[in-house]
């Protein structure tokens, strides 16, 4: 085991509702949906029409700005409906799955080690798996023509209640390995894998046989140490005009299946977590699965917030919604829309705060049942040094945010805008006394340099 990179800054938010190590496979829901909104900046152009029969793995739309990038149906069945929103924007492509079992578009089963780079790119694009490769800066789907500075995979997630990725990978080690082999071909010698340092892990260097040990990195520390962006920052910081790619480990497995099994099998393991889940555990479901099949009967009563993803960066959802393309986790917490009498004055033994202004700091080991209350109103920047405590990067968060608010591109570049992503600043937003929407500002800054820079 190599030397771990130790990150001191950050914070692990300890919440109630961590998924237990139980895995249940759920049957396919009676309708599934592909959601173009899961893909940032992709302008969908439909390849199917209502009533048409599709196979699992058959592309249902492509990206207008890069026609090679396609999104495939996770099931075989009949296209039932195209749900459109404002300005006829496509929200969902609903498909009724075959009851008799899924039929796949099939490809020859090959070992990616024996394929050329071009053949691998071709297979990933055709098989609807290219969209799992994303790039930084900007968190977009990678452009196949680019030569990335490196491809990065973080094999652990430090977010609140995050799924144990090693547990997930342990289910399909061979497919994970095959996916890694394919990625290795895309960037020979530049595929980097990060593991959690200082702990026993289910994934070890033997499982990553083909990756040279200098490209296997260990990170230690609280959230956001598991964020791939934070790791890239420490391994190979992104400069202007550079591009790196990253893939989520579970998506590597799906890519691996495309080669080893010769089909696009879009099953994912999702952790159902949060204080409002009766029995938090793992479920094996299909991408696009109706969330009701996961949630119904498994949640507590009351007003709930259902989030696809973790509680810091996830998207608000409902049981009518469908499982998003990159989703590994569902979090359900209580809504906190009740005013609290003199709440700011009380001792607050049950209130989590990184500051020790509430007496909860006396109980450092406790898990919290937090709701969605803002705990205050938005104010101007007043407190200083708070963000720095939770951002383990060589970046001055408030200075960068102010440069973004001033729309000063040169300054943003000097301060490292290309190295950041919204999720890396989620904890800054969480701790902010002035309740500033830090992730939104970062997102605006990234969009501004992307379009104007």
């Amino acid at each position, binding site marked *: 085991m190599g030397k771990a990179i130790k990150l001191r800054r950050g914070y692990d938010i300890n919440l109630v509702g961590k998924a237990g190590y139980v895995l249940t496979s759920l049957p396919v829901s009676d309708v599934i949906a592909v959601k173009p909104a899961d893909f940032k900046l992709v302008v969908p152009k439909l390849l199917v029409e209502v009533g048409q029969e599709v196979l699992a793995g058959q592309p249902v739309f492509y990206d207008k700005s890069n026609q090679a990038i396609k999104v495939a149906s996770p099931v075989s069945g009949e296209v039932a409906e195209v749900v459109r929103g404002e300005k006829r924007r496509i929200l969902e492509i609903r498909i009724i799955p075959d009851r008799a079992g899924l039929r796949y578009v099939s490809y020859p089963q090959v070992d990616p080690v024996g394929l050329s780079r071009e053949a691998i790119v071709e297979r990933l694009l055709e098989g609807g798996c290219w969209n799992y490769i994303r790039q930084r800066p900007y968190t977009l789907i990678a452009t196949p023509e680019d030569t990335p500075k490196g491809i990065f995979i973080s094999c652990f997630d430090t977010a609140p209640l995050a799924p144990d990725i090693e547990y997930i990978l342990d289910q399909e080690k061979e497919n994970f390995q095959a996916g890694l082999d394919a990625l290795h071909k895309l960037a020979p010698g530049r595929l980097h894998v990060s593991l959690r340092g200082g702990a026993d892990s289910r994934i070890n260097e033997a499982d990553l046989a083909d990756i040279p040990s200098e490209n296997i990195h260990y990170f230690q520390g609280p959230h956001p140490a598991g964020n791939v962006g934070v790791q890239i920052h420490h391994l190979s910081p992104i400069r202007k005009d550079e591009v790196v790619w990253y893939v989520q480990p579970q998506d590597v497995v799906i890519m691996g299946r495309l080669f080893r099994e010769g089909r696009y099998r879009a099953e994912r393991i999702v952790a159902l977590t949060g204080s409002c889940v009766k029995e938090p555990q793992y479920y094996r479901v299909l991408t696009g699965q109706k969330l009701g099949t996961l949630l119904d009967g498994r949640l507590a009563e009351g007003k709930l917030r259902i989030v696809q993803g973790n509680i810091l960066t996830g998207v608000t959802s409902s049981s009518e919604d469908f499982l998003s393309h990159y989703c590994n986790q569902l979090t359900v917490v209580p809504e906190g829309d009740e005013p609290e009498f003199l709440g700011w004055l009380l001792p607050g033994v049950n209130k989590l705060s990184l500051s020790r*202004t509430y007496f909860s700091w006396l109980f450092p080991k406790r898990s919290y049942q937090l*709701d969605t209350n803002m705990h205050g*109103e938005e104010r101007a920047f007043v407190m200083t040094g708070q963000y720095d405590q939770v951002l383990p990067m060589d970046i001055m968060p408030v200075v960068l945010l102010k440069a973004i608010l001033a729309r000063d591109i040169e300054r943003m570049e*000097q301060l490292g805008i290309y190295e950041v992503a919204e999720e890396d600043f989620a904890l800054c937003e969480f701790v902010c006394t002035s309740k500033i929407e830090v992730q939104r500002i970062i997102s605006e800054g990234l969009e501004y340099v992307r379009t104007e820079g």
Partner: protein
Amino acid sequence: MLVDTAKPHFHKGGRFEKFHPAFDALETFLFVPGHTTHNGVHIRDAMDLKRAMFTVIVALTPTLFFGMWNVGYQHYQAYGMQVSFVDNFLFGAQRVLPIVIVSYAVGLGVEFIFAILRGHQVSEGYLVTGMLIPLILPVTIPLWMVGLAAIFCTVLGKEIFGGTGMNFMNPALLARAFLFFAFPSYMTGDVWVDLTPEPGHTLVDAYSGATSLVAFDTNWEAMPSAWRQFWGFEAGSIGETSTFACLLGALLLIGTGVGSWKIIVACCLGALGMGLLMNGLAPADVTTHAMHTPAYYHLLMGGFAFGAVYMATDPVSAAQTERGKWIYGILIGVFTVVLRVFNPAYPEGVMLAILLMNVFAPLIDHVVVEQHIKNRAKRA
């Protein structure tokens, strides 16, 4: 609920729509609103600005209560009377509470007027400022001057810059500096002890009415002992005399993470270092010269501790970068000692040192940020 029934009148289209900021301030004071997150993170840290400001006020209470007691103690001392602890405290409370009330009433009044005129929310900043102002004034201050200071500090110290978070100088210190230069006769000389006549008693001979800082300029050895200065049994502004009380506040501010320990420690290091340097350079033949003052005296004398703990740490007017905080704090300590020793006209050097560094804080931050950018460029 009364608040709920009144609410519609203050919303858009309601009868008192204009007064919505005032209503909102009252409502959010009573209730942490049921607002939920809708963008970005779904859960939030429990601390808000109200809690932060409330913590500072709690941290200020040791100095307030000690100040009340000391006002009575100094008063009865001047008349050579021995009275009980409670009598000392009650006398002080009678003198100090009106000042506190006027400071809050006038300052919050101005804040509300600005909030209503400009349609923004009432920020919590004044909760602290309103308490700081009385604590750095002499007890004999006329109440109208307290009001004037509160108006000056809110309008010129904060609102013209855009309100809490936008000002670049500490509003409370600005108010004190304003009074100091506008009404010097009320702010210097024989103003530190309340000399309301006590029937049947006359001032004792030993009474000088001077603060230790005045004694310090002519003969540092004539100052009260370091121990008395540490506890704060001396004349001075209401809340500033007791280093011990400030230390309690500092522990709370640092413990809760509301105040920057870096700034407090840096101020002390700066003052100690400069004090030692002065000792080294002091004229050997004049042993009473201020430069001979032991360095640690500077931490105990006058308002240094109060300034370092409560004023220098104001996050809005201090340096905002972590490295900048060290520079900022050290320079405050250095300038305090320099001003005290070399400028007898302004014995209370800490006030001016902090205001001066408030002005320079953006420059310090600028240098730190530029250095950060240079380091980043080198790394690549």
